[in-house]
């Protein structure tokens, strides 16, 4: 009997080992086994950047919306495009009409928050510089998405953690303070060295400096302020922003191209396109000679939403006008813009 009790108590002890109930998913990555290596961080950065591309419905994107709402363009399109024409008329065509823009920006913010929260658990960095660069890119993108929201919706809830929270709208000071804080940190930690050509379009120190200047102008202008108060840090002053811009101008290597018309690929078609030939235009391409692009939205050429659908929407309507693409004719330019 003693023996039996002995065996039974062994069984009870074995049973009480709590790690008996531990298990791990074998065929999907989860938050506890992802975000372990620099490669994981790179993939999550791709996930953050990918939201810059609005896919097949670009007409809810802040760029499209602001173009149509501005005096520069009309709505265009055809008779069945009341939805898009409503944008240009500042009208509602549905509840939640700009939901997609809201969702995409907050998805980007969630992914950036997730990356920033997970950085401490990553091992095997190639260098401290690599870590700082990735962190800087995530901070830049969080600031970028908040600025996009601020332009579309005014002030918005300031979500800085992945934990679900139902937050009220932040004040302009809080929102722009955080944007300035993120960009300042990005500027401080990101490397001066240029990225490899494969990383074209990604956020750099110089892009952060430029973005800071733009946001400073926006905030101080729209809210009639002279500085941006930064939480737990010194406020962002005009002189600091000027120093960023100066630093960018002298160090970044970015400058305007000689003829702005060379920024677009149609000018490459010199032989077929007399306008380009007559004006001696030549596309500068995307890398190297293109010193003007500091940060860009990257598109693919694999169809199904990977490509640049702004071109399709804004292209000349239903005309074969080589070398210009066939398009749907949204946003025809107001002649005033040209005349002015």
């Amino acid at each position, binding site marked *: 009997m003693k023996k039996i009790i002995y065996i039974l108590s062994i069984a009870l002890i074995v*049973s009480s080992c709590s790690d008996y109930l531990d298990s791990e*998913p*074998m065929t999907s990555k989860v*938050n506890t086994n992802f975000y372990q290596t620099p490669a994981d961080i790179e993939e999550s950065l791709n996930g953050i950047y990918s939201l810059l591309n609005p896919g097949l419905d670009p007409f809810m994107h802040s760029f499209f919306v602001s173009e149509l709402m501005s005096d520069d363009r009309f709505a265009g399109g055809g008779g069945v495009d009341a939805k898009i024409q409503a944008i240009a008329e500042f009208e509602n065509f549905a509840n939640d009409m700009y939901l997609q823009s809201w969702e995409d920006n907050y998805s980007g913010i969630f992914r950036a928050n997730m990356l920033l929260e997970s950085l401490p658990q990553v091992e095997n960095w190639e260098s401290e510089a690599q870590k700082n660069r990735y962190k800087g890119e995530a901070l830049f993108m969080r600031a970028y998405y908040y600025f996009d929201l601020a332009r579309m919706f005014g002030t918005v809830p300031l979500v800085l953690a992945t934990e679900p929270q139902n937050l009220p709208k932040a004040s302009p000071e809080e929102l722009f303070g955080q944007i300035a804080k993120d960009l300042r940190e990005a500027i401080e930690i990101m490397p001066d060295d240029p990225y490899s050509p494969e990383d074209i379009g990604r956020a750099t120190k110089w892009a952060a400096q430029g973005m800071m200047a733009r946001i400073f102008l926006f905030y101080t202008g729209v809210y009639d302020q002279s500085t941006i108060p930064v939480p737990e840090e010194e406020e962002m002053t005009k002189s600091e922003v000027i120093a960023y811009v100066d630093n960018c101008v002298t160090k970044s290597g970015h400058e305007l191209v000689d003829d702005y018309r060379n920024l677009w690929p149609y000018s490459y078609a010199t032989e077929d396109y007399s306008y380009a030939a007559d004006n001696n235009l030549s596309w500068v391409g995307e890398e190297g000679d293109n010193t003007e692009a500091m940060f860009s939205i*990257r598109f693919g050429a694999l169809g199904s939403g990977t490509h640049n659908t702004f071109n399709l929407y804004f292209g000349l309507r239903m005309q074969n006008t080589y070398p210009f693409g066939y398009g749907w004719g949204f946003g025809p330019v107001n002649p005033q813009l040209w005349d002015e």
Partner: protein
Amino acid sequence: MQIVKTSGQPGSGYRINIRGLGTTGDASPLFIVDGVPVEDIEFLNPSEIESIDILKDAASAAIYGSRSANGVVLVTTKSGKFESKPTITYDGYYGVQNLFKKVPTLNAQEYATMMNEARMNDGLKPFDFAALVPDWEQYESGDNKGTDWLDEVLVNDAPVQNHAVGIAGGTEKSNYSLGFSYTSQDGILGKPVASSYERYNVRINTEHIIFENDNYTILKVGETFAYSSIEKSGIATGGMYSNTIRNVLSTHPFMPVYDENGEFHDAIPWDIRVPNPVGIMVYTQGNNVSESNKLIANGYVEFQPLNGLKLRSSFGYDFSSGSYRSYTPEYNLSERHFRDYSSTTHSLSRGRGYNFENTINYVFESKSGNSVDLLAGTTVQKNNIGESISGTNINSIFDDLEHAYLSNSTTIDPARTILDSYPWGENMLLSYFGRVNYDYNEKYMATLVMRADGSSKFAEGNRWGYFPSVAAGWVASSEDFLSVTRGWLPYFKIRASWGQNGNQNISPFQYLSTISFSGADHFGIDKKERLTGAYPNILPNPEVTWETSEQLNVGVDARILDDNFSLNFDWYIKTTKDWLVAAPTLASYGTGAPYINGGDVENRGFELSLSWRDKIGDFSYFASANVAHNENKVTRIDNYEKIIHGPINVLADLTSEMFRAEEGYPIGYFWGYKTDGIFQNEEEVQSYVNSEGEMIQPDAEPGDVRFVNTNGDNVINDDDKVMIGDPNPDYTFGINLGADYKGFDFSISASGVAGNQIIRSYRDFAIFPTHNFTTDIFNRWHGEGTSNRLPKLSTSSSKNFSNISDLYVEDADYLRITNFSVGYDFKNLIRANYFGKLRAYIAVQNLYTFTEYSGMDPEVGYSGGTTFGSGIDLGFYPSPRTVLFGVNIEL
């Protein structure tokens, strides 16, 4: 309790739910075979089963706490008895099965008339059939009635047989029971690739006394061992796509089955999109075979050091393995239905699990009649330890199922070669439990159970669920003051119980956030190279924990008039708490919603069973009946809409959501438009106005459906949709009658349901206007006063048909005579005394079904591709009617 076959196809499973659906997740009960928890009991041969106990109320299920929220089905297989002489039994039958009810579809002439009527209704010229239908003159003249596709796949007199041999006996110290059996069943549909099913079972149960003294057994060991091997093949059933039954019911009659060369006839110009359904079945759905093997073994030791103190340790183990092979040849049934390569699929899987239980039990009885039974124990359980591997490749060097092995494909095709392997996902449970039973002279009794269960499905900190239960009983008839009634009421007991049981049958890892690698590609310099992006696609919910089912049960047991008549009554309220539902989310969370314990479901009802048993001389007979009433209601869903949506496109392509779970309604109720007859003329259209005088269906024409405008506005839209049916029966009932007289025996049993509905369509009305109709279409509207239910026909997808409405909903009440048998025991005629039994019988299963339901079988088990839908008939494989001849021999 409701038991519904998921399909009438041989070897298909059952959906069992005890006292109503308590969750939109897995609502099947916990099955325990000889102490080993298993997924289902379909691998057992009924001849091996000694008894099945269904534990419905919380207190009796409590000791099986984890996973018992949906009830427990306790199966005990046959065992031998100590000190009994060996008996050998043989139970066998052979029978034939047939379809008991055909759905009548239109023949070629009727069909052509309807198609032209639709054209004319739309203001179009009649069809030029001669140009579209080969050999039209034969149809036009009426010589050829067209193809009845259901007839083409029907198997007459499909055989079914079963042979089971059992040997049982025991000595003073040991007992044993062995069983061997074979079952085979052919399907009634799917000719020439009709389904088939074969099963072999072996069972060995023994028990041995190792030590005993004069008064009690000190050490006892035993084991149960059951092995089964199943081989089956089947045709496609269930949903809208890839469903042979739906295809044969909906394909037009203009296409012959075979062409002049004896090949499957190509699709005809009449509708090039509709292929030969027999060809599709043979090529893509019928060439498959699956085999599964299952071993369930349980060994136990029972040690009784003192009289009444028992230590018991049992270890149960189950092992299963399976394989599946299928072959799809190259074929060409039309320019849209062809495959220029053959394809072979082979998959293998194996899995195991164990269950280790240790209990200590002490029974104490005092002379004054107090009896206390204490039990404490622990269970360690791990199951689903398994893995699967599968491969598909093309262009085998052989052209048949027999040689469907991947080695016979010699090339790898990047687009069509598929390889996959994955683990099943282990599931661990750890439990501690204790029980106190108290009994005073069998007059007052009480039970208290407490258990703690830890499950690996949840995050650390939320793994443990605690499930208490209490039960009390009072045998009033044992009280002295009721001795006066004992003459006519020998036994009367009142019982009550309350308890909580747990359910952890949810997907694992809900507490983690899965990382998605799709739909987030970024591009660098190369516009054709995707840079994979990763992101968490769901917010983790570390708080996720057990669903709890809480149940209050009050019951009465009585025996009346010399114990001839017995009555059991139970009333219950069962509430599923903390049901797992998708949480409300804000878009600013930035990713998908997590699952939270955020819903409640209530089931309440009663169960009554009555039985009568008597003997008059040599004639003995019995009659019993039971009825159960259940009311199912969702009482809380913690999301914004208070709804869990069902999928769209279930009834046909381009149809909206038609069933859902919503606060205040039964789970899976049918959601759609109510109709109020047909507009007979223009005046009726004009006068269909709301209180403001605005027309509600201004575009309607005579012959269109009048949809009920439930909200009083001036438009028919989603806001007017209401509950148009409930697939959950209000009542389930059963009747058994039997008698025997001098060796003759007779029995009949019937079962049924009432108060539920089925939603039915075989046509894909929006996309395939050429789909055939069933003959109910004769009752359509075709002029004023011709019909007030079915609308006029149209060649296009009109709202009359494409709206989900009560036109598709039918009452599904039925009473089915499930079994009728007469037998005679020839033992009485033969003088040889070595026969314990020599009975021969004839039985008819599924003899007749009383129902108004117009489909083939009112017992429809298709669930719309979800765990919570039911009562959806898209072309359902019906259960056959079987005539059996059998013998029971006992030596």
